């Protein structure tokens, strides 16, 4: 009998998550995984935050806790606290009940639910995304039915922001178009606009009624300060305009596998926010009915206790500081080795990733000869580096740059 699946081809491995698959299959003891953005300690181990363990212990020990379905929009206190975290406790948008917040499956889930909502209810179905951006972004938006256009972002010549190109491309977008903005620590480049540049972007967008859709996956992870890293989002919200925000706790609370995040839709009025929330529920129900309880409960437990919140900010800063120190070590080691080229972008870029500027061939060479695992666009996860592994990476980069075009 002929299989009904005979036309189903084998899909290639996901380009980002596939890096870890390849790394796991490599027997070499010298191998380094600089692929997916998951934090590692100096010992190269995954980290579960101490405050997370404490929150979990509290939850598991609580005899009154049940596993009943949570509402379609998720846990109420988690939603309130998440909105407060990204917008600031004194945000007028919150005080005026203009924010609809829906617990979703981490950043990806928040982006997808937001995009599906926009496809159904917003008059524009084109979204502008930066070039380059996280590999999964175009897929998320395409499957939600939005069409994707790119705006210039990264300038390979300066390894910095192509600000003129960005302004031109957003300036040329049709009125009302959706625009994806990385709130901080742009992935994959690590290149962020300055606050003056953010202000210009905001004015341009508001003048053309472009709808901002923020992807906030690194709040607190970029600079080490939760408030600083929320600055771009807050200035947009402060002007009274509308926007969408996809928030993730994967990195800043180390809750990767728990899939915790939130979609916030900042609206003009409380009435609109309430209607918007009711419609988002209709997107969620046929997708997965309601979100998972565990991760959101951990987040809520931490955010509502001032002691735990404090402890969290300290651990968070610790992670951010280690990454900043890795940047410094890598840069200084490349300088010391005399590797040709200007490597200052390593310390200028911010967040988990560095866009090295290495090309596909050089990356392939580094994987083959030195067992360095990274994405083919030249992105490395600083979180995967340690003082012990920096020398090996430096050797690999040096060899790639001097021996491979």
């Amino acid at each position, binding site marked *: 009998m002929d299989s009904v699946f005979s036309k189903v081809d084998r899909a290639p491995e996901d380009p980002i998550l596939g890096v870890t698959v390849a790394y796991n299959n490599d027997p070499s003891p010298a191998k380094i995984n600089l692929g997916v953005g*998951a934090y590692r300690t100096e010992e190269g181990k995954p980290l579960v935050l101490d405050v997370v363990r404490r929150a979990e212990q509290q939850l598991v020990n609580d005899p009154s806790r049940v596993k009943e379905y949570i509402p379609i929009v998720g846990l109420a206190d988690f939603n309130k606290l998440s909105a407060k975290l990204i917008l600031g406790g004194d945000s007028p948008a919150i005080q005026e009940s203009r924010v609809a917040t829906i617990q979703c499956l981490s950043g990806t889930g928040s982006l997808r639910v937001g995009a599906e909502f926009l496809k159904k209810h917003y008059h524009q179905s084109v979204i502008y995304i930066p070039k380059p951006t996280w590999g999964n972004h175009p897929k998320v938006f395409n499957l939600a039915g939005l069409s994707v256009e790119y705006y210039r972002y990264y300038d390979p010549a300066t390894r910095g922001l192509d600000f003129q190109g960005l302004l031109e491309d957003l300036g040329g977008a049709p009125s009302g178009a959706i625009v994806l903005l990385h709130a901080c620590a742009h992935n994959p480049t690590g290149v962020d606009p300055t606050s003056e540049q953010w202000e210009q972007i905001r004015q341009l967008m508001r003048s053309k009624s472009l709808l901002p859709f923020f992807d906030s996956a690194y709040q607190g992870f970029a600079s080490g300060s939760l408030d600083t890293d929320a600055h771009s989002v807050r200035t947009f919200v402060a002007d009274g305009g509308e926007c969408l925000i996809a928030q993730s706790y994967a990195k800043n609370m180390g809750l*990767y596998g728990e899939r915790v995040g939130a979609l916030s839709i900042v609206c003009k009025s409380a009435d609109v926010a309430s209607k918007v929330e009711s*419609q988002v529920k209709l997107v969620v*129900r046929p997708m*997965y*009915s309601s979100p998972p309880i565990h991760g959101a409960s951990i987040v809520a437990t931490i955010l509502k206790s001032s002691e735990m919140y404090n402890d969290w900010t300290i651990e968070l800063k610790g992670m951010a500081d280690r990454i900043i120190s890795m940047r410094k070590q890598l840069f200084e080691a490349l300088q010391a080795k005399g590797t040709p080229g200007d490597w200052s972008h390593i310390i200028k870029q911010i967040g988990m990733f560095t866009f090295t500027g290495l090309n596909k061939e050089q990356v392939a060479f580094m994987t083959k000869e030195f067992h360095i695992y990274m994405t083919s666009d030249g992105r490395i996860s600083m979180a995967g580096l340690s003082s012990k592994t920096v020398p090996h990476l430096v050797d690999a980069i040096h060899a790639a740059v001097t021996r491979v075009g």
Partner: protein
Amino acid sequence: MASSMLSLGSTSLLPREVNKDKLKLGTSGSNPFLKAKSFSRVTMTVAVKPSRFEGITMAPPDPILGVSEAFKADTNELKLNLGVGAYRTEELQPYVLNVVKKAENLMLERGDNKEYLPIEGLAAFNKATAELLFGAGHPVIKEQKVATIQGLSGTGSLRLAAALIERYFPGAKVLISAPTWGNHKNIFNDAKVPWSEYRYYDPKTIGLDFEGMIADIKEAPEGSFILLHGCAHNPTGIDPTPEQWVKIADVIQEKNHIPFFDVAYQGFASGSLDEDAASVRLFADRGMEFFVAQSYSKNLGLYAERIGAINVVCSSADAATRVKSQLKRIARPMYSNPPVHGARIVANVVGDAAMFGEWKAEMEMMAGRIKTVRQKLYDSLVSKDKSGKDWSFILKQIGMFSFTGLNKAQSDNMTNKWHVYMTKDGRISLAGLSLAKCEYLADAIIDSYHNVS
């Protein structure tokens, strides 16, 4: 109108210029189109443009989940929630299985990390799940013909399968039972998979319209997907007999249709995990290719953890590998990878012989309580109702739900007069009924049935 205000407010929001304009127009309090907002040292006058979402209407509450919301709002002490299918103890309290608490404590002691799962989910979970469904020794398992990926409970697993159908079987229709779980059509609608209904429930007998079902399946275009409830049909509680399952498999094979099982109650129907998988195993025994969406919400009480799986039984290991890779491609832009917590609980429980045994015992206890409550409800109805109406359908139905045969007006009467919360299709969740409340419920049903049309 506001247009002149719009050009003012939107193009330039630099503090200096805004203050100048604010002076020109007088105080913001008198002009309804301008609002002055102060943020630290910056005062911005913002024209109140209409919302981009102005035209959005308020969506109606979910017909099933909305019932619990309405129940919560009711202050009457006689109220009874027979809406959503979530198991309750005799004291009408939610129930966390002991074996689940054990597993969670173990996980905490071990200090498991929280790294991303692979897109397809936890390997140990996927293995345990396929084995639970088909039996560990089944050829489809041994020959690696099953593509299993962890999904977000039943709903999420159905959605992944629906997306696969839309992509690889363009134009193919899914046939769903009339009636079926309310969310099925929403899932296929959002996945853009066309659907139609096959006859299932016969209101005259409050039983299965078997001939109608077979006729409609036969009539469907060749290669249609047939959505089947593995056991404990939701909302009716009416399952085909083993002989009827054989005939259903025959007609599906005859028409080269593709079966698509929704298994949300394995273990909850009869109390036996193996017995409740009989229909699925019958199809697997025949070497058919088919889909099975599975949920641990009810049988392990893991409702809120959102843990389930989509299983695709293929004719070869190679096909299973390809199908699995494409399911991953669908999951990645939806939520990247699934949540770890519920998957670990299942893997721990199913993977440990002692805990698995404990689970089976708790499973039998839950299913047993429901059977006891069915019997008591039946006995109460028979003793109170003098009309001679045949209430035996209550005993013939199986699983968490009972289709009472009450229509919408009668169901409304149940709620408005008796504070009994149920879905408008006449479905009651026996999982939410206690022995103590059976007589009250019987009174409500008898009243609604006889006195309301």
